[in-house]
């Protein structure tokens, strides 16, 4: 009896303790976001005071207005979007047939080719960047959308992810379609793709976010201000303003964070699934 009483107490205490710990952790994790937002709403004279105040006394959108008028923000957003979108379309168009071939067709050298694709996932971007830069430079693609997208037109990870998904689709479905006279191409687009859309969507979200966020490759390829993507624009703004206009810098950071964050919150579950796919099967 005593034991069951104790157990009941633990059943009440454990969730409370758990919430407490998670809540404390959340405060730590969210602090930079809150601090960013609060600073972005403060006028300069409130930022440069020594004593700590979280909330702005006179909240203002002045910082946002200066950032918006001081730089072609819509252009940066457009650049980021175009590059991420070009990459995504090209990746989807290439990984789908490749994954289908690796999963459901039999041809000489299939396994060797598949291992080569797997190997692609293991090679870090930093080893390929110098040669890729030389190539893009020779092609005259520096400072163009093509140059920004070129190294990422297909994805070994995407092929792998989609192949694993295609493998789970029973052959009998394909055989049935073939008896009805469908060729490989139709089988792929009309049977495989509709069934695989959760995997495709998860990959799409993952890819889009990755390239929206990329800083390294655009840093090499972009030469003029008008071709800057969001991360590059933020970094160069920080370079000019560091130490002075913290309110404006934080407003710029908010503008940089919001699109991806909003996108993430909308597709949250799929995004996590996408990460999970990469996590457990990559």
């Amino acid at each position, binding site marked *: 009896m005593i034991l069951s009483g104790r157990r009941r107490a633990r059943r009440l205490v454990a969730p409370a303790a758990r919430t407490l710990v998670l809540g404390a952790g959340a405060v730590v*994790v969210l602090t930079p976001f809150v601090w960013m937002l609060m600073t972005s709403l403060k006028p300069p004279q409130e930022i440069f005071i020594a004593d700590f105040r979280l909330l702005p006394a006179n909240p203002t959108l002045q910082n946002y207005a200066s950032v918006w008028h001081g730089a072609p923000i819509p252009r940066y957003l457009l650049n980021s979007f175009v590059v991420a979108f070009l990459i995504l379309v090209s990746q989807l168009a290439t990984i789908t047939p490749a994954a289908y071939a690796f999963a459901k067709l039999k041809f000489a050298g299939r396994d060797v080719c598949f291992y080569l694709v797997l190997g692609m996932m293991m090679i870090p971007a930093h080893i*390929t960047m*110098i040669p890729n*830069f030389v190539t893009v430079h020779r092609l005259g693609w520096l400072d163009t959308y093509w140059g920004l997208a070129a190294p990422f037109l*297909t994805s070994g990870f995407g092929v792998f992810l989609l192949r694993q998904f295609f493998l789970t689709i029973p052959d009998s479905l394909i055989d049935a379609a073939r008896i009805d006279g469908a060729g490989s191409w139709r089988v792929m687009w009309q049977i495989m793709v509709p069934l695989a859309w959760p995997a495709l969507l998860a990959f799409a979200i993952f890819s889009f976010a990755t390239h929206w966020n990329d800083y390294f490759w655009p840093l090499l390829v972009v030469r003029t201000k008008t071709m800057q993507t969001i991360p590059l624009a*933020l970094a160069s703004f*920080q370079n000019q303003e560091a130490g002075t206009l913290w309110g404006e810098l934080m407003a710029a950071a908010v503008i940089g964070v919001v699109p991806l964050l909003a996108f993430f919150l909308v597709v949250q579950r799929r995004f996590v699934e996408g990460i999970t796919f990469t*996590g*457990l099967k990559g």
Partner: protein
Amino acid sequence: MVFVYIPVFYSLYLSLLRWNLMSPRSTFVGTANYERLMAAPEFWNAFANSVLYLLGTVPTSMVLGLALALLVHRTGVLQGFWRSVYFLPAASTFIAMAIVWQWIYHPSIGLFNQGLAALRLSPIPWLDDPRYSLWSLIIIGNWQAVGYNMVLFLAGLGNIPSEMHDAAAVDGADAFQRLRHVTIPVLSPTTLFVLIISSIRSFQMFDLAKVLTEGGPVRSTEVLVYVIWQQAFQFFDIGFASALACVVFVMLLAFTVLQMRLFASRVHYQ
């Protein structure tokens, strides 16, 4: 494929040249770049910094990520909420958040030093002192990686059938024993995977060193990838940079294979 495999061999070839990227002429110098590399203090300094960054981020972000996953996993309907909260750092534009951290680390009016002042403690020159700079970046690295690792662990936890826990509970195992003898062994494939990808990501850290510290002060945050970038695109020493890229690649490969070998025998696949 064209942009991955050909560059690997091309990199190898470039690493045997002396070339400044601009001139049409390049000279074949054999392994001279590798010899220079081994003798260069910059290389060993960057190597040490990269290893320290790896050791400072991977174990802590994995342990915290696992702990959070275990807590969040049992929150029922609120699981989605907690997952989103902790995943936010990984889902936001990283450069933007790096700039926010720079503001938090501001020597006089940053959040951290204001907090220290409120506690009547002396301020810490987070990014401006070579003794602290790399550790300051390590804090950011952890902040970003914990939620990501948590999501991976959560996915692994979701695959553990609850019957296993029930069976252990019936046999009289308490919560800690169940964690030690059921959860952790069954989770081991996930753990190995998280270890490998976190290590690869950590070892290739670049953005923070570039945007926040430019490798400084006094080279204290120069990591390997930063040096590759600097040699190739600041000093235009393509041969040296390519040699370094090849060395980093071999290190990563060896490290990954080593981790798989070491832990393969301890990983239990269902």
